[in-house]
């Protein structure tokens, strides 16, 4: 939705507000705890959120998207059945219950994180200062309608390599269970005037982190 018109004002809020409804913290914790079962990766979960019906994506707030995608994912990986979700069948104990995360290890798991850097056999093609052009379609080239992290507003644009971040897991592959396929990731600078019909000033830039496969020499 980057660049979209019509969304109105941004509404700043006091910095001590953490949640905006009683059920928000529970939705957050539930999603994280389920993720710790190790049955999907972060890219798959993002794919599930973006794969909601466009009308649902538009009307759901942040944690509503999380909940809907969590339910879809639980069924997709077989942790839960549709009958159980619908309340039409009694909850069967899961064979994966031994992976359940207890209160004593949660903090450790959160602190451990999940790095996305990997060794990769893919050689870096670009260096800082190089001019590059992004793919002309913000689409997954392998899976029709699949997950990608090239925003539509930056498709088919020319930018400048600013930094090499090392090799990172490729969401376009990992989100579909097709392997991590790590490749070099770059910070790429785009002049605002190359992205927008009416840039605010000629000085401004937008920086994106983009995988090597999204880029060609320009």
């Amino acid at each position, binding site marked *: *939705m*980057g*660049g979209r018109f019509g*969304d109105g*004002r*941004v*509404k700043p*809020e006091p*910095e001590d*507000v*953490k949640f905006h*409804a009683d*059920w928000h*913290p*529970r*939705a*957050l*914790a*539930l999603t994280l705890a389920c993720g710790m079962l190790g049955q999907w990766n972060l890219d798959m979960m993002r794919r599930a959120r*973006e794969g909601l*019906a466009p009308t649902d994506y538009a009307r759901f*707030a*942040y*944690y*509503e998207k999380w*909940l809907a*995608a969590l*339910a*879809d994912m*639980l*069924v997709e990986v077989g942790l*839960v059945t*549709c009958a159980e*979700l619908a*309340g039409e069948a009694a909850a*069967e*104990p*899961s064979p994966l219950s031994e992976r*359940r*995360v*207890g209160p004593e290890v*949660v903090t450790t798991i*959160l*602190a451990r*994180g999940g790095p*996305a*850097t990997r060794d990769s056999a893919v050689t870096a093609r670009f260096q800082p200062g190089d001019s590059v052009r992004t793919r002309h379609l913000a689409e997954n080239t392998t899976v029709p309608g699949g997950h990608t*992290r090239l*925003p539509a507003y930056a498709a088919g644009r020319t930018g400048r390599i600013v930094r090499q*971040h090392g090799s*990172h897991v490729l969401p376009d592959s990992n989100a579909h269970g097709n392997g991590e396929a790590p490749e070099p*990731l770059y910070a790429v*600078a785009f002049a605002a005037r190359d992205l927008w019909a009416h840039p*605010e*000033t000629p*000085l*401004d830039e937008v*920086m*994106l*982190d983009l995988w090597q496969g999204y880029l060609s020499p320009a």
Partner: protein
Amino acid sequence: MPHDDHDHPHTLLPPDPALRVKALETLLTRKGLIDPAALDVIIDTYSNRIGPQNGAHVVARAWSDPGFKAALLADADPVLADMGYYGRQGEHMMVVENTDQVHNMVVCTLCSCYPWPLLGIPPGWYKSDAYRARAVREPRKVLAEFGVTLPDGTAVRVWDSTAEVRYLVLPQRPAGTEGMTETDLQALVTRDSMIGCGMVPAP
């Protein structure tokens, strides 16, 4: 509820989100997949332990210690790990410095990626359609809605968090803070200033 919609089983749950959470938690607890006590710990962690005070600590130290600042800007990860600020959604950090020449701002147009170990969970506006849509196209209008006006000649650099790298803005140190301790400086630093949507106020 379309029971035959296999692509979107979430439609099988009650539409009200509070009921959805309750239904899911009950179901998953019965199946032995989650432990409600673990959920309590996660909530406590992000409600009370991990929040913008972490980022403010880093900023205050960078303002106080030029060597630290140089190391932080050059390669943030080992520096932050040393301070204990590592974890989920902060595995690969870059710290970008605001100066008279450049004002940095952070957004995630694709979802709402955010440096959790340093700033906690993102504020409501950061996750809003309005911020995600507009921060990249008209950052100065967005800044104005936060009461921020940049001097002429300052360039805006908006970082769209499209991968697993997370960005922390190192805001400008306000005037009148020359003699302040790191602890006092930390208390000055606002969350919004570390996203690039605010200036740190003079004391």
